């Protein structure tokens, strides 16, 4: 597609439920990032995928969070047993290069945990 696509755009869930967020990067982009943006705060790095290399999971806040990516295409971020503090906008970005290049961001998935 023309840009990074994320779904759902909004998700309201009950505490303890699992949620899955999807990211469709720009075609041909080898790098894919997930960030979390809590209300009024900056972007918190979660995970990075680069081609077939092992992902950098150093930003995942707990073992309830996991992410997968198939090749250089779609990625899913899964949050198990959601907690209220998981409420945030989850942003996905892709890039044709890692670190030095421009990141192209999706519009985010807003997660609200009741």
């Amino acid at each position, binding site marked *: 597609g023309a840009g*990074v696509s994320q779904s759902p755009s909004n998700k309201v869930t009950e505490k303890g439920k699992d949620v899955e967020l999807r990211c469709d990067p720009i075609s041909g982009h080898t790098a894919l990032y997930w960030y979390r943006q809590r209300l009024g705060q900056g972007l918190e790095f979660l995970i990075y995928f680069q081609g077939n290399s092992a992902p950098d999971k150093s930003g995942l806040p707990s073992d309830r969070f996991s992410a997968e990516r198939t090749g250089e295409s779609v990625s899913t971020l899964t949050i198990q047993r959601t907690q209220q503090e998981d409420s945030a906008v989850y942003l996905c970005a892709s890039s044709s290069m890692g670190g030095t290049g421009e990141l192209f961001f999706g519009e985010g998935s807003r997660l609200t945990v009741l």
Partner: protein
Amino acid sequence: AQSVTQLDSQVPVFEEAPVELRCNYSSSVSVYLFWYVQYPNQGLQLLLKYLSGSTLVKGINGFEAEFNKSQTSFHLRKPSVHISDTAEYFCAVSAKGGYNKLIFGAGTRLAVHP
């Protein structure tokens, strides 16, 4: 590791006035520096970036930033702002060399008033 400090969480300014959004970074290695903008209800987009060379970098929409290595700063400036510049601005840093994830500051909300 790298870190970014945006010194002002909010900057109110009148239309056509100049503005400076301040950013300081910390790193033990050489870095690349970025400014991203997030308009209301939209994803982030790149304003400008410093990779090497001239320390004065020009970006989109009349913004520019100057890299100051001795002061570890990368302040964003615009000589005359418009209402449409109202947005959240994020400074970001990554270490040079290979893949290095982008670390973001907490953001500065620029509010332009008529």
